[in-house]
């Protein structure tokens, strides 16, 4: 067990020493001692950001941080997936990219079909402006959107946009949504994908 005494060291010294110790650490456990609450908090936050688990023990004026590096690998593996839990795909046109329309239409179709084969799946797909055409009657990606929907991807079409394009009665897949829900989704997503 490695013990590092950072008492008397000013911030950010304890954090730097922690970082170095974690990098060099052959063993999986480390005890770090600091003598003030802000150092304790900083180190605690840092090691958690590195995927370690930490328990703080107060002894008189000092803080003993029991850091478990063992969690680094385990949690680091789980972390990307965890973080990517809420990938939001935001489609604001029925075309992908700026340029030729026919090409844009082909690329959008290819993009959506490719999503079917890739991980992680987005939790939600938002269609806005002419993007709503993709989920409406006459679209040639309805089957693809249905497959995505079956795989758990929520498909939201902007109601105002459907109304504008006269497609409100012609939505074939997903649900009709509103700006409140759309804006909320954008704010809450861990990652936003705008093809």
């Amino acid at each position: 067990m490695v013990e590092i005494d950072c008492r008397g060291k000013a911030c950010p010294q304890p954090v730097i020493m922690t970082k170095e110790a974690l990098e060099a650490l052959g063993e999986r456990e480390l005890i770090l001692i600091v003598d003030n609450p802000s150092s304790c908090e900083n180190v605690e936050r840092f090691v958690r950001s590195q995927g370690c688990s930490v328990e703080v023990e107060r002894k008189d004026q000092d803080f003993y941080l029991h850091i478990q590096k063992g969690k680094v690998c385990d949690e680091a593996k789980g972390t990307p997936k965890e973080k990517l839990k809420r990938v939001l795909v935001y489609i604001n046109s029925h075309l992908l990219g700026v340029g030729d329309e026919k090409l844009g239409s082909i690329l959008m179709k290819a993009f959506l079909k490719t999503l079917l084969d890739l991980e992680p799946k987005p939790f939600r797909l938002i269609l806005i402006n002419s993007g709503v055409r993709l989920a409406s009657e006459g679209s040639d990606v309805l089957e693809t959107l249905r497959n995505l929907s079956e795989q758990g991807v929520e498909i939201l079409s902007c109601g105002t946009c459907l109304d504008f394009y006269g497609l409100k009665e012609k939505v074939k897949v997903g649900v009709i949504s509103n700006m409140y829900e759309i804006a909320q989704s954008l704010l809450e997503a861990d990652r936003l994908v705008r093809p």
Partner: protein
Amino acid sequence: MKCVFLFGSIHHVMKAEKLLKGKGMEVDLIPVPREISSDCGVAIELPLGLKENVLHLFKENKISILECYTKADGREFEKIG
């Protein structure tokens, strides 16, 4: 069973799609499956039964294809041309 055609350029894909759709055929544009090629691209998928007819149409309209595959129910591709 489906049949997948690969072309040398997106322009050929678009021309082929237009031609076949014009003939009332059931064609689908798909991203070129990773199993076949790592190149970025779009391919045309259609029912295998239409293959001979389509090849004839391509020849007639001077649309050259790069490769042709059959696609079994899952994702098994077999090169046939």
